[in-house]
C-alpha cells in the first residue's frame, strides 16, 4: 500500500516530467524499492510536505537548477530544467538562475548549464504539437 507521501511525490513527478519518471530512473534491479523511497523523500517530503506555506515548488525547482549548475551535473540539470518549465517557471527565470551562479561557481559550469538549458528548450519546441 502506497503512503500519502509517495502518492504526492508521484503526482508531482507526473506534473514535472512528461514520462512521469524524471530523475528517478535509478539503475537498480527490478523490484528494488529504493527509487520509490527516494520519490517519497524528494518529491513527497522535501519538495512538498516541507514546503507548505514556505517555499513553493517553483522556487525549489529553480534552486535545484542552481545547485546542479554548481555541481556540473548536466544530465540531471536537463531533467530539472524540463521539470521547472512544466511547473511554470519561465525560460528567462531559468537562464537567469544559471547566470547568477557565474561569480560563485565559475563561467565554465555556467556555460555548460546554459547549453543544457538551450537544448532542453529547443527539444520542447520541437516536441510541441
Amino acid at each position, binding site marked *: 500500500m502506497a503512503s500519502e507521501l509517495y502518492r504526492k511525490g508521484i503526482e508531482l513527478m507526473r506534473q514535472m516530467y512528461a514520462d512521469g519518471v524524471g530523475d528517478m530512473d535509478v539503475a537498480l534491479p527490478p523490484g528494488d524499492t529504493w527509487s520509490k523511497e527516494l520519490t517519497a523523500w524528494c518529491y513527497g517530503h522535501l519538495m512538498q510536505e516541507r514546503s507548505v506555506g514556505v*517555499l513553493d515548488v517553483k*522556487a525549489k525547482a529553480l534552486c535545484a*537548477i542552481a545547485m546542479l549548475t*554548481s555541481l556540473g551535473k548536466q544530465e540531471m540539470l536537463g531533467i530539472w530544467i524540463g521539470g521547472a518549465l512544466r511547473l511554470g517557471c519561465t525560460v528567462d527565470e531559468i537562464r537567469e538562475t544559471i547566470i*547568477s*551562479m557565474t561569480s560563485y561557481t565559475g563561467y565554465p559550469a555556467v556555460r555548460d548549464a546554459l547549453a543544457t538549458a538551450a537544448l532542453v528548450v529547443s527539444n520542447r519546441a520541437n516536441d510541441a504539437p
Partner: protein
Amino acid sequence: MEKDNQRDSYPGVTSYQIAEIGLTEDHFDETRPYYETLFGQMPMYGKEGIGKSGIKGFEFTSNIWVFGVIHKRGYLDMKLRALAILAGLTVGQRLDVARIWINACLNVGCTEEEVKELIIFTSLFGGHPAMRDVALAFDEVVAKRKADPSLKMA
C-alpha cells in the same frame, strides 16, 4: 551610449552596459544601493577600495561585474536570486561565502523559515554534511542577529 533605457522598466535592472561604456564610477555608484541592500554598508568607496581581497582596485571592478552586471539583468527577484545562490554555495561547500548569503537572504526579506527550508532542501543534492555545516551557520547567524537586530552581516 550611456544608458540602456529599454531595460529600465525592470526594477533593479542595470542601466549601464560595460560593453558600451566600460567600468565607470557612475556604474559603481549605481550598484551601491543594491549591494547595501544585500550586505549592509559597502566596505569600500571609490576605485581604490579597502576590500578584503587585498587586490587594490579589484573590489571596484568586481562589484560592477557581479552586482552591476550579473545580478541586475532582471527576470529574478532579489529573494529568489539570493536563495538560489545560497543553494549553489551550499552544495559547493563554500561555507564562508554561504554565511554571507544567509545574511543576504534575510536582508532582502526572506523569512527564517524560507532560508531554513532552502538549506534543508540542499541535502538531497549536496549531501547531508554540506547541508549540516550551513544549517549550523544559519543558527549562529540568526542568534547573532536576534541579539543585535541592527546587524546586517552576522
